[in-house]
Every structure is written in C-alpha cells, then in structure tokens.
C-alpha cells in the first residue's frame, strides 16, 4: 500500500488547490487520446476525434476529463485509503467499461506532464515524485478489483 508522509500530503494538497480542475482534466484526457491514439478505442461514442484540434475541443472529452479529474481530487482527500475510495470505480472499469489498467498508468503520466506544463519550475522534482506516487496509487486502486 502506498504511504504518504505528512509533508508530501501538504505539498500535494497545496498544489492541487491551484489546479484548474475545469480545464486540466480535459487537457489531460485530450493529450492521452492524441499521444496514445489507441486509447480512443474506449470513446467511440464521443463523436469527432479525427484531428488534434477536434479532440482538444471536443465537449465530451472536456466533460469526461473534468469528471476524471474530480475523481483525482477525491483521491487527494483520501490518500490513506485509495483502494477503498476507488473500489466501486474499479469494479465499474472492469465489469462494465472493460478498460485495460495500463490505460490508468498512461493517463496518470499524462496528468503529471499537464501539471508540469501548468506550473513550470514550481513543479519541482520532489513535487513530481509526490504526484507520480498519487497517480500510481490511483492506477493500482482502480486495478485492484479486477477479476
């Protein structure tokens, strides 16, 4: 189980408070769909994914990205119990959505790159380390109920 020190929790929460959840989620999901195009296989119902601008501007991508990022926000409020927090979502992603857990790792990494882009030098190696721990914890928690 992943463990966060008090200091890590503080720096993570501190940065997260400054994240534009409205926009960063859509950006992360959009970048995932473009950098790793095979991930588009889960989003047939999203309409126009035919170009980079179409994807980044797609309202369904933005809406879903916002939803996903709000989930990450939940994770940050419950860093000591990620498996419990994501139990239901894990079953959903396995039983209904049939998403390969590798996709959670890819999205987590893209989210870290998006945070680096938005925060620049403020996104120090130590902050990156903390956030990589969060996204890894979330990915593992989402994969935990697969059967």
């Amino acid at each position: 189980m992943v463990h966060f020190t008090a200091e890590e929790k503080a720096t993570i929460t501190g940065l997260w408070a400054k994240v534009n959840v409205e926009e960063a989620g859509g950006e992360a999901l959009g970048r995932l769909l473009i950098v790793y195009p095979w991930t588009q296989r889960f989003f047939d119902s999203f309409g126009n994914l035919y170009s980079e601008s179409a994807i980044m501007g797609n309202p369904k991508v933005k809406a879903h990205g916002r939803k996903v990022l709000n989930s990450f926000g939940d994770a940050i409020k419950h860093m000591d119990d990620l498996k419990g927090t994501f139990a239901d979502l894990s079953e959903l992603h396995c039983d209904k959505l049939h998403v390969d857990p590798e996709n959670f790792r890819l999205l987590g990494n893209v989210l870290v790159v998006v945070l680096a882009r938005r925060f620049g030098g403020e996104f120090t190696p130590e902050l990156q380390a903390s956030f990589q721990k969060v996204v890894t914890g979330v990915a593992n928690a989402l994969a935990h109920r697969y059967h």
Partner: protein
Amino acid sequence: MLSAQERAHIAQVWDLIAGHEALFGAELLRRLFTVYPSTKVYFRHLGDHPDEVQLLNHGQRVLQAVGVAVQYMDNLRAVLSPLADLHAQVLRVDPSNFPLVIQCFQVVLASHLQGEFTVEMQAAWDKFLTGIAVVLTEKYR
C-alpha cells in the same frame, strides 16, 4: 516512421534545448533519480548523492546523444549503433527503465516550454524517444 510534421515538431523543440544540453540533461537526471530512485543503480559511478557538476556532465552526454538522434532521426539504427552496443554489452539497463526516462523528459519539456508545449510536440517527442529506446535495446538478445 516519423511524418514530416512530427520531424518539424521534434526539430522545433530541439532548437530550444540546443546549447543548453548540460542544464536540461542535469534536470532530467535529477528528476529521474528523485522520482524513480531505483534508476540510480545504473549510475553508481556518480556516487550515492551525485552533485551538480556530475549531473551537468553526465546530463550533457545524454542530451548530446539525443541531439545526434535529432540530427539523424531518419537513420537512428546506424547512428546510435555504438550506443546500442554499449547498452547491450556493458550497461545492460533493463528495458523497463526507458519509459521512466521518457516520462521525466516530457516533464522537463513541459515545465520549460509551458504554454508552448503543444500536444503535437508531446506526441512527436514521445514517439521519437520511444524509437530511440527501441534502438538502444535492440541488440540485447
């Protein structure tokens, strides 16, 4: 295979790094060692706590090799052959580590370029760096 647009994005980003290979390389290694401490096992010659000078020196070597790859991106296999030999016979870095370096590379680019780091650049560099990793591990067996 890189498209003409991908090649342009790669070259465009490299223009910003060229001349600053040591600084970018040092940051890449600093992030790699901080975020993925297990990667330090491959750099024992730098000691337990590599100092700034060591990171700059080694970082420069790594980024200069990337610069060569940018220059010859249509012929990576030939131009990276000596490095491929080195990695296969001497360094033997487990292939699972290359995605970790690539992730840190993307974070370095994103944190420096910020508003200019387009998704097209991110996609092109991910593809390009993955191609380099494939060549560097190709002779492993």
